[in-house]
């Protein structure tokens, strides 16, 4: 039997034997834990497919002398992880609540307290909810029984967080941050055909959920340990907000490293539907569980019912015109008119609005990088990099391609795509003002 290096026997005196037996030194959450793939990937490796790479991290070296780096569309918060290792402060804005809470869970500023809170929840295992049911069933995201267990876990998490954190608001947030990655385990969803999405309705396996929760908490501790070991002193701010509307302090930031959602038909709110549904069930404001929600996330693929918008960027307008000139079958024309063209229009408009809003918070002397990937539609390259360059030029900044490289199958919907459909070019666009 190998015990964890993180949790001693003294700290968990009555962990059932079979749990300890299954507890390896290096906790890796396997598929059989039934946690959602996206969170398993984040917990096991610290990143998901939509995250900065090591190559992007090198861009930070150009910004080392800056005091604080802004990411207005910060996703899973990998900027903070990079900045933390380099001792640079970061300021991250994220609109999608599950992603925001993942950032918060990994915030180096709170990491020691979050670890204590996690250990306390492990110590509470005698009070974890019990069930004699093997499984429950629902056509919704949660069965009555699964939701009941999650609510009880949430109450325990709040209790532990309140004892650990001084501020009640932070405690509430950390409790949610610890709950969300696990909630898929007790949901009635199954992975979508588009692997990052989830299908509604199905079986919730209650059998052995405690074992998975135990493994999950230990894996979180392991992740936090990595965050803690690598952290250098710096301040990391994480704000739940929309880059298009957030009121940032004027002229605060001298540097930015960011990457917007890509127009690859992956909808970040849909990716986290089970988590949003739980947030709604818990009465947390700001969850995006409704298709009708007016505040669509950038890159949302819900277009029906939305007011028509027209981007100002010439590159965007040209691309939209070019799509209509492509020889297409009747179905493709219909699909473009009803879905793809409005989708791209909203996407480009959202970028224009977001960057115009963010620009107000940038200092007169400023340097930043935007990382984007141009993928394709109907054999045409979607000119995201050109549009972004043009937006920043229009905002009175200098902007140019700093580096580019060919990539394949970055976020593509069809992994079997070949030729131009599989071609994606990653650009780092430098933006500056002096």
């Amino acid at each position: 039997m190998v015990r964890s290096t993180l949790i001693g026997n003294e700290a968990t005196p009555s962990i059932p034997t079979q749990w300890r037996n299954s507890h390896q030194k290096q906790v890796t959450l396997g598929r059989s834990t039934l946690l959602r793939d996206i969170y398993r990937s984040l917990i096991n490796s610290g990143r998901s497919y939509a995250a900065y790479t090591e190559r992007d991290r090198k861009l930070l070296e150009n910004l080392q002398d800056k005091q604080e780096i802004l990411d207005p569309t910060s996703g899973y918060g990998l900027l903070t992880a990079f900045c933390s290792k380099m001792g640079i402060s970061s300021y991250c804005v994220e609109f999608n609540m599950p992603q925001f809470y993942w950032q918060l869970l990994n915030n180096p500023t709170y990491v020691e307290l979050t670890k204590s809170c996690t250990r306390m929840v492990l110590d509470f295992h005698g009070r974890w909810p019990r069930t004699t049911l093997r499984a429950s069933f629902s056509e919704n995201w949660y069965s009555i029984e699964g939701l009941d267990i999650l609510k009880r876990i949430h109450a325990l998490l709040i209790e532990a967080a309140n004892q650990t954190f001084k501020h009640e608001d932070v405690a509430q947030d950390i409790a949610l941050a610890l709950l969300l990655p696990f909630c898929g385990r007790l949901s009635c969803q199954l992975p979508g055909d588009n692997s990052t999405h989830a299908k509604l309705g199905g079986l919730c396996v209650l059998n052995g959920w405690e074992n998975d929760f135990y493994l999950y908490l230990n894996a979180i501790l392991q992740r936090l340990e990595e965050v803690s070991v690598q952290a250098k002193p710096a301040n990391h701010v994480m704000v739940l907000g929309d880059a298009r509307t957030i009121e940032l302090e004027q002229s605060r930031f001298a540097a930015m490293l960011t990457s917007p959602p890509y127009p690859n038909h992956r909808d970040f709110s849909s990716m986290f539907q089970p988590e949003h549904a739980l947030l709604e069930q818990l009465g947390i404001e700001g969850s995006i569980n409704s298709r009708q929600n007016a505040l669509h996330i950038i890159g949302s693929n819900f277009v029906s019912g939305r007011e028509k918008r027209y981007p100002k960027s010439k590159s965007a307008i040209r691309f939209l015109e070019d799509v209509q000139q492509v020889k297409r079958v009747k179905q493709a024309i219909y699909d473009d008119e009803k879905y793809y063209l409005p989708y791209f229009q909203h996407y480009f408009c959202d970028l224009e609005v977001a960057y115009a809003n963010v620009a107000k918070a940038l200092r007169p002397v400023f340097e930043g990088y935007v990382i984007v990937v141009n993928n394709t539609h109907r054999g045409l390259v979607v000119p995201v990099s050109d549009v972004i360059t043009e937006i920043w030029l229009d905002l009175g900044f200098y902007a140019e391609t700093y580096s580019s490289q060919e990539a394949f199958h970055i976020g593509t919907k069809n992994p079997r795509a070949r030729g131009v459909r599989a071609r994606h070019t990653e650009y780092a666009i430098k933006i500056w003002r002096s």
Partner: protein
Amino acid sequence: MMNSLLNNQRVLLTQSGVLVKSEQGLGLLTYSPFTSQIYAVHPTEAQEVLNWLSAPESQPPMEIYAKTLGPGWAAPLDEAKFPSPHLLPEVKMWSSLPMPRQPLVINWLITGRCPLACRYCYAEDLMRDDSREPRKEDISRIGESILSLNPLVVVLTGGDPLFSPHLEEAMQCLSGQAGIVVDTSGYTFTSKHIALFKKHRVAVRISFDSERPKINQYQRPLHPPYAKRETKNVPTAQAAIAALCMCLDAGIPVTVQTVATQKTANDLVALGDKLFRLGVRSWRIFKVAPSAARYDGYKELVGSVGKTKSGKRSDGPYKYVFQKVQEAYSNTWQQKMAVQVTYNETPNAVILVGPDGVFYSESNVMLGKTILDEVNPTMPSLDSICSKVNMTAHAERYLNVTKP
């Protein structure tokens, strides 16, 4: 005595509770009522394994036997291993699979009544005809006829055998002489069935295609006249899971049977993960097969398999998904869950006995049932069976020798 058993090809209930029969070339065929798995033991090891099964206090000749044939009596069920194919001690000892002379498994449709009307049902042409329903006195006659062929396992199927008033008689007739498996939708499953199954060491196979209620209901809808009578209208998926949990809680060996169609194929791996965690130890996946009884339903469910517009052959979702299932089995499930993928591509591999006692095989090439012995349809000779049934495919099917 043991040597004589190896020569006479009759089914023997050993001291361990494992049923065995000798089959020339195939060695020792075993069926464990604890795990509901059939294995073939290579002829060179057959005697030693038989000795061990007959004297449970002795040691198995190799550890793999304890992990495959021993769970439930010589080892805890949790320690079971499920190698695939079901050829022991290891597949490399088998250069080829000899053709059996007697059936391994016979499917007895003891009733044509069923609360469900599955879109792909292969048996609909033998169902819903009250004039064919057996009377109480027919049960022992049909049972004896089946047992005369020395099958290792008899599957009580239908229709839904839980709808048969003669289920217990059929079990009494077979008990101790062959492994008994009940195929059911679980729709009318109750705690009374649990007691009956425990008494006769019955293993249960529950059909469940999709955890998404609407998809399962689409593929496995209620039979309309039954739906009219049924007031609760429980979704068929929910009923199946409830029955499954009852069996697991009662310690009854249970196999989940899933028909893979274009609507369910992509969800198979996720379903497997959940079944695995639910405690299911045996999962059987069938590629949806054409049948004369429900050919329209088959075409709806099979999707693009076969020739496409461009003339190229398409494997539909199966090739990719079954590969993923295989990966998940090798990486995760193998330790605790047997997985059997049945491609249904070789015709005449199964033996069916209709509610009226007539023996058939099902062809998926000619699309229809074939009577195995025109002269003696309710008591076919082994020669007529071997001439109409593809016995090699029959053995491959039940020993999990899958050929994609």
